[in-house]
């Protein structure tokens, strides 16, 4: 841990004085621990890592960065899949993992106050003895941090009925990119800055305390597994369920390749011969769930399901969910490498888009496993490839990009829950025009006039605050000065 190893000696020395040597990492080997998040093909070793324990320390670090004109990036558990927490080689990485106290479980007010490093699941575990839970449940909920959830506006399988992080956060204390500690509260009048901050991917500041809404555990939860000959009939069932006016807590689908992977990894024992399985979870008052369940099962059977299973208790439910939850990791069993994509399409376009993905798969000779949140059209195609084979990675990248283009062509989005990060910044122009992006920059500049907070993420081209919105011509001053890079 030698300060001299850092390319930012002056700043590092000040950070050491502020936080002490136990909270500042400069050793090149240890720094490499933080070089990427869950998306491992974007890597950068941070110049220095700090591990603050209080909001005041975060603010002090940010003020030092601001004074030095040094970029900084906040990092939670590092489970993000879009490179949102990739550090800057010329900047400070602020790791929030030591701020992980649950400050309050307030059942009468149905809320919890937590520090950003608390895991998503830990909130539910703390609330569960009282009959409550925290609704947004990303698949990584055992390890992902609530601060990261706020940064990415994370969702999960149960978004369809319960919404996203933004629908369950009541207040955020944050450190602005200029080092002020400010609280954004849903009850404040005026602009909904809380809503705008959530999902801003660390570009508007760093959350240091989060108040979340706790939800009452439903009276009944019933999970149905339905096996179909293929994704088409499964898709028909999804449309029929929605058309019947039923909003399940979750509707998940896996295609044959995804099932094969899950079986190989966790032996989930899904019905043999299934070309697709649908997991439909209903929750709520017992009478409501019972009536809906009968209808959902009928609709699955009339859409072509050849087998259905039901789970009413947690153990049976876990058995059904096991295959789905393991799917991403499981493809490692059937492919040396893979890319996970995160496109969204309107629900009614699912059949066409799935057919389009199949066509792309055939055309490029690249296998694609589909695991997705069918209820809200959020696709997670897993593009499989062999990284030892020349050109395979490039082909997989191309298929992945073509899938996104397909999503946008059908009126969808380039990300449903993983974020733009560094990975998809170049695709933002597929969804938004220059005026849209410039308008977003007005917000960015209000919070972060110097563009120091997680720069290079979300937006395709760096812009200077104070520039008139419009199409830029020539080399950007930040690029020319070497402070930023273009994609």
């Amino acid at each position: 841990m030698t300060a001299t190893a850092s390319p930012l000696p002056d700043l590092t020395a000040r950070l050491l004085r502020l936080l002490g040597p136990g909270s500042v990492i400069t050793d090149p080997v240890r720094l490499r621990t933080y070089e990427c998040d869950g998306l491992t093909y974007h890597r950068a070793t941070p110049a220095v890592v700090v591990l603050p324990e209080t909001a005041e320390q975060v603010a002090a670090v940010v003020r030092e960065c601001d004074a030095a004109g040094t970029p900084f990036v906040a990092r939670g558990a590092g489970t993000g899949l879009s490179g949102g927490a990739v550090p800057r080689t010329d900047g400070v990485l602020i790791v929030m993992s030591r701020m992980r106290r649950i400050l309050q479980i307030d059942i009468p007010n149905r809320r919890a106050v937590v520090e950003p490093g608390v895991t998503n699941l830990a909130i539910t575990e703390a609330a569960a003895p009282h009959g409550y839970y925290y609704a947004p449940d990303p698949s990584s909920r055992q390890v992902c941090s609530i601060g990261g959830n706020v940064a990415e506006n994370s969702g999960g399988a149960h978004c369809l009925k319960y919404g996203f992080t933004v629908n369950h956060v009541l207040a955020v204390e944050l450190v602005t990119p200029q080092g002020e500690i400010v609280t954004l509260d849903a009850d404040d009048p005026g602009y909904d800055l809380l809503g705008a901050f959530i999902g801003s991917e660390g570009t508007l500041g760093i959350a240091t305390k989060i108040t979340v809404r706790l939800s009452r555990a439903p009276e009944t939860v019933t999970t149905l597994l339905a096996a179909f000959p293929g994704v088409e009939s499964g898709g028909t069932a999804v449309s029929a369920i929605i058309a019947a006016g039923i909003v399940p807590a979750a509707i998940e689908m896996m295609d044959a390749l995804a099932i094969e992977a899950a079986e190989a990894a966790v032996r989930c024992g899904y019905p043999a011969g299934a070309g697709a399985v649908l997991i439909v979870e209903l929750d709520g008052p017992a009478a409501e769930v019972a009536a809906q369940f009968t209808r959902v099962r009928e609709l699955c059977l009339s859409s072509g399901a050849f087998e259905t299973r039901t789970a009413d208790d947690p153990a049976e439910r876990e058995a059904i969910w096991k295959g789905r939850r393991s799917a991403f990791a499981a493809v490692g069993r059937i492919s040396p490498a893979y890319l996970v994509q995160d496109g969204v399409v309107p629900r009614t376009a699912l059949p066409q888009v799935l057919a389009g993905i199949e066509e792309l798969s055939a055309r490029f000779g690249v296998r694609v496993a589909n695991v997705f949140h069918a209820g809200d059209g959020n696709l997670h195609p897993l593009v499989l490839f062999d990284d030892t084979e020349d050109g395979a990675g490039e082909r997989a990248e191309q298929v992945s990009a073509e899938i996104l283009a397909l999503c946008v062509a059908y009126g969808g989005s380039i990300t449903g829950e993983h974020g733009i990060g560094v990975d998809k910044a170049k695709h933002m122009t597929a969804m938004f025009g220059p005026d849209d992006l410039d308008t977003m920059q007005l917000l960015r500049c209000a919070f972060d006039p110097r563009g120091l907070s997680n720069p290079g993420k979300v937006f395709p081209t760096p812009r200077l605050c104070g520039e008139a919105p419009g199409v830029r011509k020539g080399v950007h001053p930040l690029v020319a000065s070497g402070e930023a890079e273009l994609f």
Partner: protein
Amino acid sequence: MNAGTELSGTGVAVRDAGPGDTVAGAEPRWVASPASTEEVAVVLRAAARRGLAVVPAGGRTKIGWGGPPERCDLLLDTRRLDQVLEHEAGDLVVRVQAGLPVRDLGEALAASGQELALDVPPGPATVGGVLATGAAGPRRLRYGTGRDLLIGITVVLADGTVARAGGRVVKNVAGYDLGKLFTGSLGTLGVITEATFRLRPLPSSRAYVTATAPEAGRLDAVGAVAGSPLEPSAVEIDVPDPGGPATVTVLIEGVAAGERAEAAGDLLGAVVPPSATPPAWWGSPPDGGYLLELRVPPASAGHAIGVVAEAAGPLAVHVRGSAACAVLWLGLDAAAPAGAVGAFVSRVRAALGTRGGRLVVWDTPATGPLDRWGPVGAAALMRRVKERFDPEDRMAPGRTPGAGKAG
């Protein structure tokens, strides 16, 4: 060429303003009635060239809300932006123009067995107006407010720039959510011209169960119902006199609504069977010239009503609103002396501010000096946002916290 001629020259319908166009005491000179996003942009570009202050208005049901405009040259009337642009029933998504009355949208959606789960009081409130004021009704408990249901937005900024954010899919985290930013903006950041919402299937049945508590302070039953697994869609309260009895009505929606409503009734101690129709006061703010909104943490609702009773003194205050969310309307008579109202506001803020309470004065009969917002933690950030979006301070100046000099 004067500004009026220039506005007329845009080809957009423009007329001279009349007495009916006054906004919280500010009299505009012109009223423009564009019918498309492009027309709004044309008008705002002309206003920018002439340095005109612009106040957007929809159905004008909340035209008095917020601080009085410091300047108002042009009223931008959005009511001709009244089209349903896209309704894909299978996607449970609708895209509309912002001047469409919410009730008209409700009728259009009901034909497909769907609804926008956003309650607004009776009247011609428009989609854009509801978003800009951040208003929401009883079912906020279950479905959230406009910001939770909004998935895409088109806005026109002060300089005429047209910007879109979000999209027409429910799940989408690409870029900043400008829709959230414009929620509660009261026209100060630009004009909302289109909005895309997620919809819900219309519930198969609704049941309301009502009980009267001897005094508002004893609202334990509200917490019991809100915290029960009965999934109430709304828990509303009506307290004509904060020292007197409180009526609590719970709405249950769904297949087994009647049965669940009876269970809710047991929790409330109701003796009247559930009804298929709401009480007459449901979803409307109390009458009165002053309209205030009090928010406290949910478990403090009963305590807050007690504080209101004590702070009111001789003032008559009618409390009504979402008991389980503790978002409560306070209605005060227009004839109440402004000084007494100001003192009441200060007393309530002093008593509840440390307990997470917020009291906002939305509407007043006169434009006297009154601290409408109380302390707002993010006011400085809001001001910085306003300065970026509208550096000349021409959009509804002074209407929101952080926007302009007015309190």
